[in-house]
């Protein structure tokens, strides 16, 4: 859930989409500016954070990758819990991945927070020769379902920063903090006086 204080907004962002659509590649491009042609299936790191400054606020995204649990439809409800934004990714060269993206949107509408900002990303936009999904179709679908749509390329970086920036702009500025906010256990010392946390 996004929460704001002095226009610093923390927002959990989840990625959804078919295996191979390029979810991890988009994140790696956005967070580290890297692209690997043959990205292995996600292993070892599935939790990134990256800060984006927009006009009136600084948004710190906590980005959750699926860690491969989408492969056999075994994504846990915890994944959606408290997400303020989602990017649903498909591969423009693969019609089936677009059909699956629509299923993920339905899943989000059922499980997610109703105020969630949803973006539809037609990835691999550099591979125009293999195009199987017309941008008009995706645009129409996105409009009908309350998403915004961009074609992206993790390889060339086209529209990658833009899609996160656009989400940051669209996040509600004054979201209610979830009731109640909890504490996160950490392995480091904090002041005793502060450690009582927020259990009022």
């Amino acid at each position, binding site marked *: 859930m996004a929460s704001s204080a002095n226009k610093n907004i923390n927002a959990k962002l989840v990625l959804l989409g078919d295996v191979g659509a390029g979810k991890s590649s988009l994140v790696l491009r956005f967070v580290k500016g890297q692209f690997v042609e043959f990205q292995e299936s996600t292993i070892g790191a599935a939790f990134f954070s990256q800060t984006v400054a927009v006009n009136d606020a600084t948004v710190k995204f906590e980005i959750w990758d699926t860690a491969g649990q989408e492969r*056999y439809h075994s994504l*846990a409800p915890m994944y959606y*819990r408290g997400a303020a934004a989602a990017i649903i990714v498909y591969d423009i060269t693969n019609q089936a991945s677009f059909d699956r993206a629509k299923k993920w949107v339905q899943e989000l509408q059922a499980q997610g927070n109703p105020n969630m900002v949803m973006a539809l990303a037609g990835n691999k936009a550099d591979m125009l020769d293999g195009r199987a999904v017309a941008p008009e179709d995706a645009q129409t679908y996105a409009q009908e379902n309350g998403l915004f749509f961009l074609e992206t390329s993790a390889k060339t970086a086209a529209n990658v920063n833009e899609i996160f920036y656009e989400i940051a702009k669209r996040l509600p500025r004054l979201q209610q903090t979830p009731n109640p906010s909890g504490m*996160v256990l*950490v392995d480091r010392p904090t002041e005793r006086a502060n450690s009582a946390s927020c*259990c009022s």
Partner: protein
Amino acid sequence: MDEEYDVIVLGTGLKECILSGLLSVDGLKVLHMDRNDYYGGESTSLNLIQLWKRFRGSDKPPAQLGASRDYNVDMIPKYIMANGALVRVLIHTDVTKYLSFKAVDGSFVYNKGKIHKVPATDMEALKSPLMGIFEKRRARKFFIYVQDYKENDPKTHEGMNLTRVTTKELIAKYGLDDNTVDFIGHALALHRDDNYLNEPALDTVKRMKLYAESLARFAGGSPYIYPLYGLGELPQAFARLSAVYGGTYMLNKPECKVEFDEEGKVCGVTSEGETAKSKKVVCDPSYLPNKVRKVGKVARAIAIMSHPIPNTNDSNSAQVILPQKQLGRKSDMYLFCCSYSHNVAPKGKYIAFVSTEAETDNPQSELKPGIDLLGPVDEIFFETYDRFEPVNEPALDNCFISTSYDATTHFESTVDDVLNMYTLITGKVLDLNVDLSAASAAEE
């Protein structure tokens, strides 16, 4: 799934998910399957519709209870000791980043027909109405001894070797009466029966220290913490850890038949006509019913209420331990209450559990003393479940089977089982020496 794995884990209960996570982090190739289409197995949390499906057939829950999705009703309700073994595992694995916790408001004990706050320190002992004026002073001295006791500092031992002296002998030295011994043994040291009295006192002293240190940790009204949205979040978080380290997840896999070679050793698991190969299987008792035996039965009631448990200082979350002796039973009874303050029910609603080890053929009536403490309820459900423990020899068949969850309202015994299984599976001892004294909580 027609591949070879180092370990196949069956069932996504908390124990199996912790093991799956630990083994994946160790670099083992793990396949984790569950016959259900949800995470958590027996230790899942249910929303209202799922709850009604399970206990009331196809009935629809009454509208006045609020939205189904606002409910996360634990099927194995337990609290987490703030300095206990599960917190060490959570910090060791860094799974804490997927979870938010909140302190539990109150810890109580039932004594002579009344509910009392559990006194955990010498100062609290002096204030507690549980004891008369002279007993308070004796108890205070004993509490100070326990607080000051350091295993590796003989000066604090006052000449007693607690690995030999029994708890009974230690307590006799302080002249405490049976009533005091009862709440110390059951509500502070969290023993489930009275066998501890004849065992070396060191274990009880350590358990009392754990309680007091956990209580001090978050300055709440209890030594316990609990995750927002219910315990069902825990297996999901450990499953995510496993997946992040390469574990493969498949829910909704029917059958999951464990295959054996001629020597009786595990060689794989078959589901939907496909066999995944593996030389080791980790599972809950339901996946290998021929290798476990029934060791008991837990009786419990789940109530939805519009008020906290009476006489618990309006605690939005609380535990009440009813020591066996107070009820004339062989095993303790536990009350557990949780509410909207931990996001497990809508505003104004409380979920209460009464659980105990069943001792008769009429377990529902055994729960009555606990249920009577709840006051009026909106809805109440009764259930019993059998507890199993493995009878196989893992060295011979490479099957590592967890023990069913007990009736206690905390996780200490759960984590013991997990750590023992981890050692059996890997031959290693998990080093849980995280710096707990330094570890603390940050606000989200």
